[in-house]
């Protein structure tokens, strides 16, 4: 068992990891920036250490500072959470070199899945369906992109080879748009990932985003824990996730689940991970990418399977074997997660400030993951995700009713949140019928101030 684990993150996921460690009897070290001096994760951890100024690159993404904190405070493991350094192969490798156990997959798996064209190639070879798209290592020149687009047929999606978070992503509907938007997307990729490598994929309209949770040990045993439907999203930001996906038949679930497990097995993946697919109307599905970390929405899988994914991630990192076979995984009821963002629900812009009153909802099947408390100041420097409300019930209809009740009960005074938007969505007849695709939220979109073209097919954590 690890003795002391450093949590290289903040906010809700840092709290989640600290709780798991308490149950496992592992002591915790929190790291924080000067902006997070009063953050809950700092108070909940057994020890805490300030590692830098507010800017993430100088604190939560500062590899030498985090490693120095871990070795100075005698930690033997590091959990990266999600975001920040969680999908940085160099960080995973630096941890191992410093004698620290990185709670996650091996560095080479992070790098492999981070190179999107390469991941596509490997998946295709393994018989996992991928979208028609650029072959080989990707494209850097406009004329290569033009040739690919012509072969695929418009519309196409431009993506960054080293991509993530929707950066460098554009939907293009004709050759003129490609000529205009390719350099833009490439510039964004260069800024965000220091890479000019792009690739194209056939753009499908009216698809759902359905992802499978993978759990794998270091002995190459892998299982899946069912799916999450994350189609309710906006500009690469997921808003509501649910499990099970309301339209998946048992047969299709088995087929997609097998493909997801194959994706993990073919590379010898270990720890927790998520295989993302696009699901088209006729039941065709396509691999888009694999996230090599715990996801924001892991909670809905925990609710329907009863498996604590964060504890499992720590156990897998310690070399423990999977305690379950695929057929032993049982799914119970329906779960939904509502992401609460500190933002103006009308204009969709961040709303930082002091939370003067925080009253989370409760009751049977209601779970709140948050780092909020009365008097907490939501800093301007980080992601606006301030809470996750997760409900669990026997049926989807009951989960919706429970979600509505809990959202109405939730009090967060002092700042604006997107709770009103969630309530609107829960009233929507299509949502209630389970009939939606990734463009669903465009009907609740405020007028865009600028004519930026955003891809509804997104990449959010």
């Amino acid at each position, binding site marked *: 068992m690890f003795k002391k684990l450093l949590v290289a993150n903040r906010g809700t996921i840092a709290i989640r990891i600290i709780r798991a460690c308490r149950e496992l009897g592992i002591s915790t070290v929190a790291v924080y920036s*000067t902006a997070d*001096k*009063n953050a*809950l994760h700092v*108070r*909940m951890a*057994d*020890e*805490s*250490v*300030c*590692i*830098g*100024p507010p800017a993430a690159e100088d*604190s939560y993404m500062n590899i*030498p*500072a985090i*490693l*120095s*904190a871990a*070795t*100075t*405070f005698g930690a033997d493991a590091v959990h990266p959470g999600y975001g920040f350094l969680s999908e940085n192969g160099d960080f995973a490798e630096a941890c191992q070199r*410093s004698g620290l156990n990185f709670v996650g997959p091996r560095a080479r798996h992070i790098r492999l899945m981070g190179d999107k064209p390469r991941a596509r190639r490997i998946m295709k070879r393994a018989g996992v369906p991928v979208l028609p798209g650029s072959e080989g290592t990707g494209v850097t020149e406009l004329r290569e992109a033009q040739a690919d687009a012509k072969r695929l047929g418009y519309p196409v999606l431009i993506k960054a080879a080293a991509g993530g978070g929707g950066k460098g992503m554009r939907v293009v509907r004709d050759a003129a748009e490609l000529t205009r938007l390719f350099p833009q997307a490439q510039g964004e990729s260069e800024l965000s990932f220091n890479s000019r490598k792009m690739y194209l994929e056939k753009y499908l309209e009216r698809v759902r985003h359905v992802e499978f949770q993978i759990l794998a040990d270091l002995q190459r045993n892998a299982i899946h824990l069912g799916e999450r439907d994350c189609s309710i999203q906006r500009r690469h930001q997921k808003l509501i996730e649910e499990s099970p996906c309301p339209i998946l038949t048992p047969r299709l679930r088995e087929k997609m689940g097998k493909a997801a497990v194959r994706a993990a097995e073919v590379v010898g993946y270990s720890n927790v991970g998520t295989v993302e697919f696009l699901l088209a109307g006729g039941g065709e599905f396509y691999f888009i990418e694999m996230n090599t970390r715990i996801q924001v929405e892991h909670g809905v899988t925990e609710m329907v399977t009863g498996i604590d994914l964060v504890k499992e991630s720590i156990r897998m990192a310690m070399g423990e074997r999977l305690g379950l076979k695929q057929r032993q995984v049982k799914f119970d009821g329906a779960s939904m997660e509502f992401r609460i963002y500190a933002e103006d629900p009308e204009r969709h812009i961040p709303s930082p400030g002091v939370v003067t009153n*925080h009253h989370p909802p409760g009751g049977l099947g209601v779970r709140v993951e948050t780092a909020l*408390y*009365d*008097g*907490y100041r939501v800093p301007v420097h980080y992601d606006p995700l301030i809470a996750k409300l997760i409900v669990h019930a026997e049926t989807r209809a009951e989960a919706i009713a429970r979600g509505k009740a809990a959202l109405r009960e939730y009090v967060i005074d002092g700042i604006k949140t997107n709770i009103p938007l969630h309530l609107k969505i829960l009233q929507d007849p299509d949502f209630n019928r389970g009939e939606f695709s990734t463009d669903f939220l465009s009907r609740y979109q405020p007028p865009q101030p600028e004519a930026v073209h955003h891809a509804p097919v997104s990449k959010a954590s």
Partner: protein
Amino acid sequence: MPANDQARRRVAVAARHGEQMEVRELKTLLVLMRDYGLVELEIEDKKGKVRLVRGGARTPEDVTAAARAASPLKMAVRHVEATEEEGAKAAGKIDLAPNQKLIESPMVGTFYRAASPDAAPFVEEGSSVRKGQPLCIIEAMKMMNEIESPAAGRVIRIIAENGNPIEYGQPLMIIEVI
């Protein structure tokens, strides 16, 4: 930072406030604290300000520990108050004159006053320093990072303790600029 570390640091800071406090005197204080069941002791300079706290009266840290066991959310609220209180106190203690500069750690690591365990400290309280002269070392990832004096002057207080873990931004020393 665990509560006892903070308490330890506070004793050290308070002790340095008296002029040339000897280890003997410090020991006397510690014995007094034990005999009278004090959990906190603060001594200010020049006949001013004494703060003694008996074990019965709860310190902010104790409240936090109790609240921590009971409720993580309520605990956080109290701790913020406690932190702000401490912040105000600390600010009161590190009250800089216009010609004084506070040296803060630019990184997380371990504080050392000398280049090696058997070497003499870089500086003592009262030492004159040139601009750019090494004041101490912060060890991070087996790398020794010398912290240089930002100006010519005199070291008037060494706040951090040799061999202790240091956070980003933690006060290390005070320099009086000449």
